[in-house]
Every structure is written in C-alpha cells, then in structure tokens.
C-alpha cells in the first residue's frame, strides 16, 4: 500500500495509532508512578509462590521518593485506585489497538520484521547509521528502521502483554479463575518480580524513545504523532 504524500510530507501515523500513542503515554505515566507507590508498601521482591518479611527477597529498595510516585505522599489505597482503574485503559486500549492494527494492516505493513533485516550485517549497518544520527533510509524515509521495529514490537507484543499478565496474576480473584497464570509466571511473587522488571524495561524504552525523538527532530516527530503528517527531512527524497 502506497503512503499518501503531499508537499514534502508523508502521511505516516494513522488516527488509531496516534490516539493509542497518546492514551498510552498518559496511562503508562500513571501506571509507573502509582506502581512505585504500591511497591513502597512492601519494597521487597521475591521469587516463587510466597514471599514476606521472614523470606529472602532478591532485591530490596528503600522508599521511592515523592517526585516519582502517584500520589506523592504515602497512600497505598489511592495509588491502587489509580493503578487498577488505569490498568483497564491500558489493557483494553492495547487489545483494541492490536485488533485495529491487524485490520488496517499497520502491523503487517510497518512492523513486519523481514529475515534480511535481522541479518547481523544489516543490524550492524543500522547500528552505525544510528550512531551517525541517520535514522531514515533515504530511499524510503517513511519506513521504520529495524531497530525501531524491534523495539516497538518488543513493547507491543512482549513487555505490555507481560505487564498485563503478571498484573492479573497478582489478583487472588483472577488466580482462582485462571490458575494457569500462576504456572505461567511461576507464582504470585515471581509474577510481582517480573512485573517490576518489565516496568523497568518500559522506562528504559521511554528514555531511549525520547532521546531519539529529540535527536531526530522533536518538532517534526511530535507534529507527526499529532497530525499524522511527517515532514521528510531535507536532502532525503521520498
């Protein structure tokens, strides 16, 4: 499918993609802040089915500071209200985005990873291009490069589903309904640990993502994610 082009701009992000992007930006921000506050109630993580004060955590934190938590002062009840309400938006938002992106072929067209792209030589080439701050294939500037595809696919198809699955495993009600979740993640406390690790990887993704947006031209990139139209950088031809 050909992309629409007009006055040196490409129609790069369709409406469902843009809506999901911004809804997720807000939702993930809330989930990270409220999640850290919930972790403050018992800042120790364990492996296995059980884990409490007399057991051995694999990692312990001192309390996360108020600038990183929602709400900013200790309130487990309110943090849970934020987390468990926005969790619905995150989970059903992702589900809807996945369905729409299969139907409008966003996944097949923009995120499909082809065998030649993951060949070591191609990955190495792409890495070097990144280090030289060249993020677009001049021959096809609207397409995602392979590192982009891999990181977006990791977030959409691995990290977010793992966060949702491990989140559900922490619910005693869901564990009764779907006990296989406990087997899949190795117990409630393992699920809690995996939930934290996946959230930390999301933070890493956000840092890299924002850094690359700034390097690639923040106005052009943010405008594209709002209007859908992405201005082709000078010297690159569509």
């Amino acid at each position: 499918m050909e992309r629409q082009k007009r006055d040196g701009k490409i129609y790069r992000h369709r409406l469902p993609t843009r809506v999901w992007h911004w809804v997720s930006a807000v939702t993930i921000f809330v989930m990270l802040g409220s999640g850290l506050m919930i972790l403050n109630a018992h800042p120790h993580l364990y492996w296995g089915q059980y884990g409490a004060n007399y057991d051995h955590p694999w990692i312990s934190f001192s309390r996360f500071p108020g600038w990183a938590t929602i709400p900013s002062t200790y309130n487990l009840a309110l943090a849970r209200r934020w987390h468990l309400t926005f969790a619905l938006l995150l989970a059903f938002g992702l589900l809807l985005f996945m369905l729409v992106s299969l139907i409008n072929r966003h996944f097949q067209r923009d995120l499909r990873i082809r065998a030649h792209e993951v060949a070591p030589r191609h990955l190495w080439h792409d890495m070097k291009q990144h280090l030289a701050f060249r993020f677009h294939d001049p021959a096809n500037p609207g397409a995602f490069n392979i590192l982009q595809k891999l990181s977006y696919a990791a977030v959409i198809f691995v990290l977010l589903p793992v966060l949702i699955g491990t989140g559900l495993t922490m619910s005693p009600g869901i564990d009764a309904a779907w006990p296989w979740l406990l087997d899949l993640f190795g117990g409630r406390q393992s699920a809690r640990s995996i939930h934290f690790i996946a959230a930390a990887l999301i933070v890493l993704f956000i840092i890299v993502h924002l850094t690359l947006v700034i390097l690639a031209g923040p106005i052009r990139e943010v405008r594209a994610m709002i209007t859908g139209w992405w201005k082709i950088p000078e010297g690159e031809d569509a």
Partner: protein
Amino acid sequence: MSRLFTRRGVTTGLIAGAGGLLSGCDALGRNETFRKILYSGDDANRTLQRLVSDRNALAREYAAPEMSPRFRTNGTRNPNTDAYNALAANDFADWRLNIGGLVERPLNIGIDRLRSLPARTQITRHDCVEGWSAIGKWTGPRLSMLLDAARLKPEARYIVFHCADRYRGGTVPYYESIDLIDAFHPQTILAWAMNDAPLSVGHGAPVRLRVERQLGYKHAKYVMGIEAVASLAGIGGGKGGLWEDIAGYDWYAGI
C-alpha cells in the same frame, strides 16, 4: 490544572517536570469528580472478574512442603481490650459467636461447638494488599453451613463480620463484609486452627474469616459476630469495612 503543569515544567526541567505532572495527579486525586472516576474502577474490576470467574472457582490449594516456613502477622497483633483479654485468659471458653441480622433463626454458639462442626482444611496463599504473600494451612467450618443453619431472609445481600479489635484510639471497631457469592464459596471458612494448632492471638484467635479469593484485609480476625444485612450503608462508615471507611481501600479486594 494545565497552568500548574506548565509553570512547574518550565521552572524545573525534565525530572521536576515529571514531578509537576505527578503533583497535578495529587490535585486530581483530591478532585471530587475525578475521584469518582478513579473509584469506579472498583466496581468495574469486580464486574469483570465475576464475568470471567465461575462463582465456585477455587483459589489454588498448595501441598504442605510449599507452605511459608514462618507466617508473619499483620494489622492488629492483639486487640488488648479488657473484654478480649478476659476471653483470652480463659482460652476463649466464654467466647460466643452471634449470627444474626436478616436471618430466620439467630444462632449463638461457643468455641467447642464450632470446633465440633465438620471442618474444611485448606493450604492457601494469603495475599496482603501491601504486596507480600504467605502460604498457610487453615481449618474451620464452611461459613455457608452456618448461614444455612441460620436461614438467611430473602432480602439479605451482604454478610458483615464484627470484630474485637479496635482502631483510632479504641473508638472504631474492625469490621468487614462480603457478598453472598463469596459467603457461600466452598473455601470461605471460619478458621479456628492455623498450621494444625489453635489460632494464635496474633493471627486472630479464636476465629478468623478466610475468604480466599480476596486480599488479606477482608479476612477479618477476632470475629465476634456475624450479621446478615440488605445494605452496608448503616454500618460503620458505610463503605463495608474499616479500611474501606478510614483509608479508602476498595471494598472488592479480589484484585
């Protein structure tokens, strides 16, 4: 709201900008309308969970080697009221459980009678709202057996547990409530033994509720009375439990 966002964002850079958004979240959390939206997640999550769960779906039961080596206590470790201390001094021989409210036949039974009833023993995981879990073995009669004996009136919708421990300087008694789906669930028991020994004071002697598909604060300790009601509005602060009233915890703690 937006003025707050921009002012903070401009003055204090990226990290503090996130902090500004977060304090915006604090302001939102105090806003009455937004709070209603946040709190609606409780009902939504309960409805969704009930939609995907069989009403008798069982919480996982574990094997003896999977039990926590040591099961921590939490909340009240000892009610320490004169009335409770008197009961404890006598090994709860004088404790009476009153089952009343919207029932045809109110019951009043002692600890020996309760211990002589057919009991269920289950090794289950106790999940605290704080995040930790401990696995222990619980023994006691099914709540449904007692409710059947007392015969609920048709208008009964909730079962309330009145407890001996008090909060806020001894002024507010602990209480909790569950709906009839959880009250009649096969694993909902009045536990008088834990790990093959009589329930200790730290864990809720002489009797605590086990409602295995919900978080720890629903598992009322030091149970003194059980009341069937049509509505939770008239009890305590009206939100169905002490922590729900004073701290804003969700009434449905299946998540």
